[in-house]
């Protein structure tokens, strides 16, 4: 009798996502769902989704959700977690959200060491609004607002969020991962599960940045977008564990 070795996580709804072909959000949603299943967290989970393509996670993961104002997810999650400390609380934010309008909220939630988990999806562009330059857009990368490529003279330099948060004492865990190859997906899964475990054990703020492709707004095929992520993004945004607490699986 054949055994099912891979299928939809129980905590994910059986629906089609609105994401474009080859968008990595679908993979990252599934990793979140798998981690919620494995740690049996779904019944007590409250997710916080702010603004961007990522907000629709509330349609796809079958747990309670709150929608926050643009960038404010870590502040809302702080309130939820402090009012209901027995719940599992995570935010799911894009780079146009977390690294731009939400910069203050993420830094102060991290500095306070709030016992929440943040999944930060970095695709180096504003996806939902049509491909404008984000704080994470690479120098030289073209977007609708930098059609000839971002220049440091005119647009400054991209923000490396993990490196910035790693200067703070508050976070218990900071990792950057990617999902453009099967090996990276498996590593990303471990990091997300570990971040969830940090919160369950009350260790404080845990943060996972996931490098993600936006083939539509990058103007590439999904497979070329994976190569671009490997060759252009990872050299500037190295995938590594910045901080891991001792004893967490």
């Amino acid at each position: 009798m054949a055994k099912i070795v891979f299928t939809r996580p129980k905590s994910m709804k059986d629906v089609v996502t609105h994401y474009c072909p080859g968008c990595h959000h679908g993979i990252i949603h599934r990793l979140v769902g798998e981690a919620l299943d494995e740690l049996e967290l779904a019944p007590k989970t409250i997710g916080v989704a702010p603004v961007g393509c990522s907000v629709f996670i509330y349609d796809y993961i079958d747990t309670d959700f709150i929608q926050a104002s643009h960038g404010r997810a870590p502040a809302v999650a702080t309130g939820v977690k402090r009012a209901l400390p027995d719940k599992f609380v995570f935010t799911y934010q894009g780079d146009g959200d977390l690294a731009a309008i939400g910069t203050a909220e993420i830094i102060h939630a991290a500095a306070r060491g709030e016992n929440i988990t943040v999944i930060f999806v970095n695709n180096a562009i504003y996806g939902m609004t049509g491909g404008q330059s984000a704080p994470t857009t690479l120098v030289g990368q073209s977007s609708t607002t930098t059609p000839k490529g971002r220049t440091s003279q005119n647009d400054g330099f991209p923000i490396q969020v993990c490196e910035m948060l790693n200067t703070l004492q508050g976070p218990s865990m900071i990792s950057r991962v990617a999902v453009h190859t099967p090996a990276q997906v498996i590593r990303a899964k471990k990091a997300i599960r570990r971040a969830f475990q940090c919160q369950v054990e009350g260790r404080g703020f845990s943060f996972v940045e996931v490098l993600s492709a936006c083939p539509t707004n990058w103007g590439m095929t999904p497979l070329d977008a994976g190569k671009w992520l490997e060759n252009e993004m990872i050299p500037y945004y190295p995938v590594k564990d910045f901080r891991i607490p001792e004893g967490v699986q």
Partner: protein
Amino acid sequence: MARAIFQEDRCKGCGLCTAACPTGIVVLDASRLNSKGFQPAIVTDKEKCNGCALCARMCPDLVIQVER
């Protein structure tokens, strides 16, 4: 016998699974369109599937279930 079952009408034809398959048996079917209007991913040689599920791990749309 291992097999990967594709829920074809959910496929968006991104092709991430085709690059993930170590045996090279997952391809986009250029001969037809699914109900969403994409060329769906299919398995060409079912006998060669080893059930590794790497295609399913790369699929952003949960199209693939793997049995072994």
